[in-house]
């Protein structure tokens, strides 16, 4: 996985959550550790969808709970959307 892509996502999440990049570690749980609510969650999802021109099905959203899972989940979709 590209380190640049992971950093890009980390910065995006940091901007939306308004918390320092350092706190968004690969395994920090968005809901338990970073305390995001439904409003922040939809903001993150919409930002990903807009930037990478992908659609994240609603049923998949609860399964994506940390940065590592975001990268693993979105990387293949991002690749598809550019082919």
């Amino acid at each position, binding site marked *: 996985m590209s380190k640049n892509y992971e950093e890009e996502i980390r910065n995006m999440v940091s901007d939306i959550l308004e918390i320092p990049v350092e706190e968004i570690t690969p395994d920090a749980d968005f809901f338990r550790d970073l305390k995001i609510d439904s*409003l922040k969650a939809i903001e993150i999802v*919409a930002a990903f969808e807009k930037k990478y021109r992908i659609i994240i099905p609603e049923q998949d*959203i609860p399964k994506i709970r940390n940065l590592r899972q975001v990268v693993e989940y979105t990387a293949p979709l991002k690749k598809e959307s550019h082919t």
Partner: protein
Amino acid sequence: MIWDKIKIKSVLPHRDPFLFIDEVIEIDGTDRVVAVTYLKEAESYFKGHFPGNPVMPGVLIIEAMAQASAILFSLDRPEVAKEHPDYYLGKVKSEFLAPAYPGDKLIVESKKVKFLDNAAITDTLVKVDDRIIAKANLIFSIKKR
């Protein structure tokens, strides 16, 4: 008119004097609605905002945009809306370009950006006589009672 006040009240929990949508005049599937708000001279907020120079408070223009967005949400998620949830604004990015005065007819347009069962994002705008007077991106939550 596509929706009258009775139909609007069947979807929105708001009531007078805090119901700001009078009619729905366009519905494009679940992507966009256009609603109307008539600014009556007798509205109580005009008395104090401001004496001798009545203009509609910007926060109430946002409220009208939010109510139009809740109507749009109800079209996209009828199974959620039929439970009569509450709608709470969480984040607003707005721009006000011109005042709204007593007697104006506000055309309130809301477009879907992203909807989930418990949260939604819309892009909205308000026109008076084809002139855009306000724009806003709204993020709101939907909570069961």
